[in-house]
């Protein structure tokens, strides 16, 4: 792999950038792989990378039905934070955040992780109780999260309206300074490049349509739009369609697939320094490096596989944003879209073994799994390699919905991005 650096770019600049190589190769599939990962999003590509790098397993294919990163990885609003409530969540998101901090260097790919702070606005007593609960739990777990007064919140984010006459005045905020955003495409491409460099096959435009099983019920490979491909192990990580794929192996996973929409404004000069989320008013916002305001809110109310946005949902997203930031009413929406999120009943992910031998699953990251990408991928690779979960992910079992040992981040209530 040719190393990326300012010098390499400068050298190429002199010769018209003719010397760059493909960032990843797209070979014809082999007959069989040690591991097939279904789903070329950040989680799947990352898992392939860590399998190769940390476990020496390189006979791996990532199979993607469309173009890699074209699922939620390339559609999300890239909020990164780790100030979740429960130990299991804090463990995995903090593991992930630590990986984010060095990811550009690790991959030699600028993923533009920008810890500019994620601030959640508190509007009432219930919000304050809930945020304080998070802040104290985070502190005792070693995770930064602090309480701000309305004035401190305004200092941190000058466009904020903290007047007492607002419909839902702000009575404080919780701020995770290490939280922020990253460049979504770069995450997919960076992992793809680094994985490909280690021999992983990245196979695009190849839809998995069935899972073949052996005499003992174990998986033996996948039926795809490009024919049968054998596999000793299959790891499913196909956000939006995990329940569909798992049902090919007769495994039912408790997922609701629901569209989540987002939009961007026209690009403008820097006006918004951080990420702001409001649970009560119900929306969140940040500004991209290109200058677009990136805006989202909660999911649609109904299960669906439609990635087309609707007008009524973004209306509610935007009225919330304009309520918090009345100065943005003249700003224009440039693009809207949606993605399908897989949501579990307790809004925490599932990563673990399944009742089918050699079939592993990573799903249920719902509306907030981008931030988990490096951490989840890293631990998923461990699971695939060793056949049992890493300690940090040991709570994310599929079995918990049977036993009732839930990790209910929904109950802990935050817009879960």
């Amino acid at each position, binding site marked *: 792999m040719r190393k990326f650096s300012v010098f390499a770019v400068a050298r190429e600049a*002199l010769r018209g950038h003719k010397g760059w*190589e493909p960032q990843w190769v797209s070979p014809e599939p082999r007959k069989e792989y040690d591991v097939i990962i279904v789903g070329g999003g950040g989680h799947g590509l990352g898992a392939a990378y860590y399998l190769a790098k940390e476990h020496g397993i390189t006979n791996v294919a990532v199979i993607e039905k469309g173009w890699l990163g074209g699922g939620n990885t390339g559609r999300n609003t890239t909020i990164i934070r780790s100030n979740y409530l429960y130990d299991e969540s804090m463990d995995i998101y903090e593991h992930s955040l630590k990986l984010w901090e060095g990811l550009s260097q690790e991959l030699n790919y600028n993923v533009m992780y920008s810890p500019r702070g994620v601030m959640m606005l508190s509007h009432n007593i219930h919000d304050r109780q809930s945020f304080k609960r998070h802040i*104290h739990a985070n502190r005792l777990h070693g995770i930064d999260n602090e309480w701000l007064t309305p004035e401190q919140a305004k200092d941190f984010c000058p466009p904020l309206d903290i007047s007492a006459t607002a419909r839902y005045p702000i009575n404080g905020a919780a701020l995770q300074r290490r939280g922020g955003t990253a460049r979504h495409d770069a995450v997919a491409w960076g992992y793809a490049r680094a994985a490909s460099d280690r021999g992983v096959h990245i196979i695009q435009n190849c839809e998995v349509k069935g899972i073949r099983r052996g005499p003992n019920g174990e998986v033996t490979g996948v039926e795809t739009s490009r024919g049968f491909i054998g596999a000793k192990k299959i790891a499913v990580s196909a956000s939006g369609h995990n329940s569909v794929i798992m049902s090919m192996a007769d495994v039912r996973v408790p997922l609701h697939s629901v569209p989540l929409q987002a939009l961007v404004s026209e690009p403008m000069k820097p006006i918004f320094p951080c990420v702001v989320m409001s649970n009560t008013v119900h929306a969140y916002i940040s500004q991209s490096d290109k*200058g677009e305001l990136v805006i989202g809110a909660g999911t649609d109310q109904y299960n669906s596989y439609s990635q087309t946005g609707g*007008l009524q949902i973004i209306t509610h997203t935007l009225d919330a944003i304009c309520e918090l930031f009345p*100065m943005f009413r003249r700003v224009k929406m440039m693009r809207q879209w949606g993605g399908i999120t897989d949501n579990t009943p307790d809004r925490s992910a599932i990563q673990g073994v399944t009742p089918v031998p050699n079939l592993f699953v990573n799903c249920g990251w719902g509306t907030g799994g981008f931030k988990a990408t490096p951490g989840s991928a890293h631990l998923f690779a461990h699971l695939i390699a060793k056949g049992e979960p890493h300690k940090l992910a040991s709570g994310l079992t599929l079995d918990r919905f049977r036993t009732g040992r839930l990790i209910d981040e929904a109950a802990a209530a935050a817009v879960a991005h």
Partner: protein
Amino acid sequence: MSGANRIAGQGRLTPARTARFTFDGKSYEALEGDTVASALLANGVHLVGRSFKYHRPRGIVSAGPEEPNALIDVARDAARRQPNVRATVQEVFDGMKVTSQNRWPSLTFDVGGLNNLMSPFFAAGFYYKTFMWPKAAWEKVYEPVIRRAAGLGTAPTEEDPDHYANRYATCDVLVVGAGVAGLSAALAAAATGARVILCDEQPEVGGALHYDRSVTVDGKEGFVWAQEAAAKLAAMENVTVLSRTTAFGYYNHNFVGLVERVTDHVARPDRKAPRERLWQVRAKRVILATGAIERHMVFGNNDRPGIMLASAARTYLNHFGVAVGKKVAIYTANDSAYEAAFDLKRAGVQIAAIIDSRSKPGDAVLNEARSHGIEVLPGHSVVDTKGHRRVSSITVVRNGGGGKRSIAVDALLTSAGWTPSVHLFSQSRGKVAYNAETGQFLPGTYAQDCLSVGACNGTNGLQATIEEALAAGELMARATGNDGGEKVELRGENAFEWTGGMAGAAEGAGADTNVKAFIDFQNDVCAKDIRLAVREGMHSIEHIKRFTTNGMATDQGKLSNLHGLAIAAETLGREIPKVGLTTFRAPYTPVTFGTIINHSRGDLFDPARKTPMHAWEEAHGALFEDVGNWKRAWYYPRAGETMQEAVDRECRTVRAVAGVFDASTLGKIEVVGPDAAEFLNLMYTNAWDTLKPGRCRYGIMLREDGFVYDDGVVGRIAEDRFHVTTTTGGAPRVMNHMEDYLQTEFPHLKVWLTSTTEQWAVIAVQGPKAREIIAPLVEGIDISNEAFPHMSVREGKICGVPTRLFRMSFTGEAGYEVNVPADYGQAVWEAIWARAETLGACAYGTETMHVLRAEKGYIIVGQDTDGTVTPFDAGLAWAVSKKKTDFVGIRGLKRPDLVKEGRKQLVGLRTKDPKLVLEEGAQIVADPNQPMPMKMLGHVTSAYWSENCGHSIAFALVEGGHSRTGQTLYVPMPDRTVAVEVTDMVFIDKEGARLNG
């Protein structure tokens, strides 16, 4: 004349009607009806903005919404300022202030222009490869610099004083676009009697007829015919014609979003008029007549001011009367651009040459050029241009090499061909199909009830367009059941030939070259960037788009997408349809946030719900808290009292005398029917069939997973009638939950549910003197302790109005909840208050209610529980029927983890230091000295100073809490560690004597 380049006798504007505006502080004259672009061009201004990345000087490319370059900031006053406006659609009004963007310190001298020198370094995606060292520098150094350089206009910083409106509309046929095709379709549809909406984004109908002056329809000049047709349509009762109205989004089920610009073109708008209006149209049928957009030629330095689309130059001349140059060349790959040369020539403008990349131009245009004496260079290409702030010369070569020559020009018009506008069709989820013969993506498979007609459907020829549109209009109208009217017939002649052309890089900008041949002007994407993306392994068009940002600017690639695709296909060695288009996403052109939200702002954003007693509470000094969307009286401070002092006083008074509390916000559901008791048996953990009419009971509702969902007191009014109460926040949820089960799981039960939350005002009277307060006011109910014990309900009268009187308590005191019809709420409250006040009672708010209930050990669902708590965890085992074999959650409750030891359970806490009040949300540990991450046992759910107890009190969810009574645990705070003792949850009147008093 307003502007030196305005040509007398040309165009449709009235020379006498002028308007003045400023551009970067300099004043210019315009004519009414001018766009900013036409007015600037009339005044000889071509340099209008700077590009996004390289900050290159840019001019006006188009005359419509596809404009990528000429983005300006338009201000009416300080607060009414709008960045990123396309100069080509913004109409001039007198007094408007226009400012250029993305330059510093000025448009002509822009420091950011240095980026252009560095451009070899700034190739597509370069930022992914660098800025990684040192680690912290991305966020601290590189990113801020990049952010400042990027972005376009500056965001408004003041609240927008304008307002916006919304209309919901339905129609039989919605026609989008009012060119020849759209007008014809609308005429045919309207003739049947169908309800038609016709919209067009321009101020006047006509579409291509704005510039194509040779067309006649029914013998009239096309544009004139169009205005007459629109007037005729507008006069029909069944038709709505909307100008300045863009269809921006085609959503599911023929739901189309339109935005109408109402006042942005008016100098002194009526302040009552909205700035823009959102139309949310549900159409039975949709006809798309959105036309086609001309593409520019892709060659070296094709982005200088003065280089524009051929059709744009025709619009400026034929509609606005403006010549875009004095010596103009045309560079084309199709016949249509010749018309620009002919029009300009006729208006007296010198045509330097027509450079045609094809070796065989059409005979008709060749002959006509010859007759005008215009030099045509077939088989030639423009490969470079010169000129800093405006193009001054072009370099022309013979294709394949040789014949190089430089031609001095002050404008260059280009045309690579026409791209049918399939944006809305595509948004409707229709699938486009590639027509290899014409090189166009055209509507293929339809997903909704819609049809495309005219240029957007690839239809060629004026009469063919008219006939297709007439047929579609009639067909769609008839399909919606309209069968009136006569057949409409129209005769059109002389449209220009718009087929042919090329996509991708032209001569001199091919694969082996390194020139800056722009495809996406705004985002500075060149042909070579596409090739670089492919070289780097980006083989999907979506990857190419994201890697290069081609088509991601505010114009969404209206000019650039097809070029990018063609270059990608060529580089990949694949056919264009194999590479495929990127998804077209709404909106077609950017839409103002304010328009989308329109009325949903300020008071209407989320209407505040107020109880019938709100005014009284306000008048008596209550402060309010937000609970859901309710405003609830929080506490009633007297002059000089702090919140704590007020709450302490209220708490004391209620227990010593009595207090009056507004409980109207509690959810209320009337559950009626012969199976009402059975239904409640299924919805709640408790047994309801055993509840006698006239009695009430505290009930707990679970979700299917066994966790507490809501609680409340339910009174049995009659055998078949229950008065159910829910938490304030839970009211709508619980109603839905019940309806859901009733309709899906228990449809056999005869039960009716009615939400009555707002029908009843509820006045809680609590405390030792509660009975004395209400006794004289109540009629028809014996409220003696014996006849009306704790947990009873009766119907009767109070103050002469009907009441449902509950004997119940959320304070631990003897008490009543007086339900009266909401309209009587305040009057009854005042009557009760008059008695309460004389007896020394007080009004109290939610804060005191919270303290009092905590003193008594009553929980608040949602505060002391959080969706992970079973009734057993909450110490409410007594409320779970052991006899029932079914209720929602019964199975969930039996899951292994819900019955295991060591679950988090609700307990009371007392701080070792009685004065210290814990913080709600604080975490609890057994060993405060353990290293991080600490093992947390649970958290504090409620914590108050209890004036009545003389010490602080708290509830907490603690692992194995019920077996820890008496243990000392710790609450580690940032500044200190607080020692606490685990207790039971009842801090006052453990025997319950006061309740029955």
